[in-house]
């Protein structure tokens, strides 16, 4: 039984098809990177996987049960989502925000239990946000806020984590920290991580499996080594890359027209 099974999933609006007969599987303890150009349907796929959107045809099953057959409450025990940055209007504090993930488990009086508080603190520690637990969301930098939302997702204690570009606003150190954290979750807690990302190189360093979506509803999935190749990248993104191999790991450097390396490239006819 696979944790997530997507079978011939199709979705689109009357004007266009976004996903066409997409199929893939993911087990727990796996890290899937979802890549593709803008508009290819990455966020849409996440929304379908979290149950927010309904597929036109095809099916999504979580633990062999169709996603439509889960109630909201049941689904929240299986899947947690970190969406792209949302700017809060009202001043909830960090700890309050993270505690909200436990709302489904609150006692009858409408308050969190002791164990919910402990889970929340654990999540804050894991994302290095415990220090400003009592600050309001509006007072944090985008990067800090991002980590708080990740902490919130962790506090849901689900087996599956869906993340939509969680490192888009983070500086290098925090980017790496998040990737390390997610990897830790995968390895230590056996979670399934599905992450939409634009950074192919970091993705290939951390993810085991990759799903690449094309703007023409084409797709391809497999191990990161299989999927992330110069040809695939050029086909999907329309960008030429040069592959470097460092300690048996593949890295891809995009060749922009005016990139320095490309200038040197041009002047050296042997490359």
């Amino acid at each position, binding site marked *: 039984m696979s944790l997530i099974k997507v079978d011939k999933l199709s979705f689109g609006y009357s004007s266009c098809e976004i996903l066409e007969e997409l199929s893939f599987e993911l087990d727990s303890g796996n890290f899937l990177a979802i890549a593709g150009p803008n508009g290819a349907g990455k966020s849409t796929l996440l*929304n379908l996987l*979290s*149950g*927010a959107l309904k597929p036109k045809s095809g099916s999504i099953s979580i633990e062999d049960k169709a996603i439509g057959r889960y109630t*909201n*409450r049941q*689904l*929240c*025990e299986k*899947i*947690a*989502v970190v*969406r792209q940055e*949302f*700017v*809060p*209007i*009202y*001043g*909830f*504090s960090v*700890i*309050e*925000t993270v505690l*909200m*993930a436990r*709302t*489904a488990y*609150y006692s009858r*009086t*409408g*308050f969190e239990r002791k164990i919910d*508080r402990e889970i929340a603190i654990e999540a804050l520690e894991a994302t290095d946000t415990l220090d400003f*637990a*009592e*600050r*309001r*969301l*509006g*007072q944090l930098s985008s990067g800090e806020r991002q980590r708080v939302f990740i902490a919130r997702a962790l506090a*849901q204690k689900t087996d599956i984590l869906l993340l939509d570009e969680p490192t888009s606003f983070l500086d290098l150190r925090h980017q790496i920290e998040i990737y390390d954290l997610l990897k830790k979750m995968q390895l230590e807690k056996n979670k399934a991580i599905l992450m939409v990302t634009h950074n192919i190189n970091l993705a290939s360093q951390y993810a085991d499996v990759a799903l690449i979506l094309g703007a023409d509803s084409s797709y391809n999935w497999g191990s990161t080594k299989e999927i992330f190749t110069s040809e695939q990248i050029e086909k999907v993104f329309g960008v030429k890359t040069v592959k470097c191999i460092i300690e048996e790991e593949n890295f891809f450097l995009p060749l922009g027209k005016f990139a320095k390396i490309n200038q040197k490239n041009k002047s050296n006819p042997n490359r």
Partner: protein
Amino acid sequence: MKDLLTGKKLVLRVLFAVIALVLIMLFCSFIGTQSISFTKVIAGVNNQRNVNTDYEIFFHVRLPRIILAAIVGAALACSGVVFQGLLRNPLADPYILGISSGAGLGTIIAVISGFNWTFLGRSPIAVFAFSGAMVTVWLVWLIGKMTGKHHVTGLLLAGVVVNAFFSAMIMFLTSIAKSEQVHATIFWLMGNMSEEDFSVLWFGGGFVMAGIAGLFYISPQLNAISFGEEDAKSMGINVKGTQTIAFAIAAAITGIAVSFSGLIGFVGLIVPHTVRLIFGPDHRQLILLSCVFGSIFLVAADTLARVIVAPAQLPVGVVTAILGGPIFLILLIKYSRKVGWSGK
């Protein structure tokens, strides 16, 4: 985690607030155009029909009115909280979804049609105002649902459209009505506190309190929803269900408030923000404290309305605006740093 809200903290805060409310209500009931003495009032409690005017004024004129102000203030403040949270719009007030024009239209129809029957002792104006408000909210809800995915925007737009249409209808009917009827409607629409029978206060107050309790029950869900419907859904909240219950309760208690005292503005807008600024945005606290503070605010405003230009009376809505604006500005300046709204 000293800042965290716990059950104990909430109970204490609400208790203090309620005690403050009761004291203020008692204090205000001794303020009015006629001076009445405390001892005479107490003396009159046992004598039923006597010429103890102090007692009569206290019991039959002041007390019912103050209790009414408390009920209406609580209802408006609470529903203000709900609409601000659900519509994710800090400028939302209880009337935003057309309740005001719906109630107004109901009133005009009642006045023009000349119905004279009463329902449970309420005048036809009150009944029609309530029905008008409820029908309008239902209509706006329906239209909003038809806009599909972006529920909140759809609701707001539907509210705007319905408001505009009904307002036009009101103006049309007003222009062809006889002048006395028009006066009655406009006077009512300006918001006014009047003395009601205790039975009416009992039932009205009971329903409003039940509504507030219901809103308290769904406060954790409201907290989650204020981050966005999708986010709330992924956290296991039944978003549609919560929204429906919240809207229904908020609309109903606003309808009751409006049928009691016409359209009183600012309470539903200012009190929630004030409580939020001082105590934070957690709905569990916000709902309960807003309703108590709403009561206090309206009781104070009504008392001022009664005495400031004695022997005439100002419409309560005027006082709420004059009082509310500056108080809110002061609080805004003082506390906004603590809250850290986006963009600051």
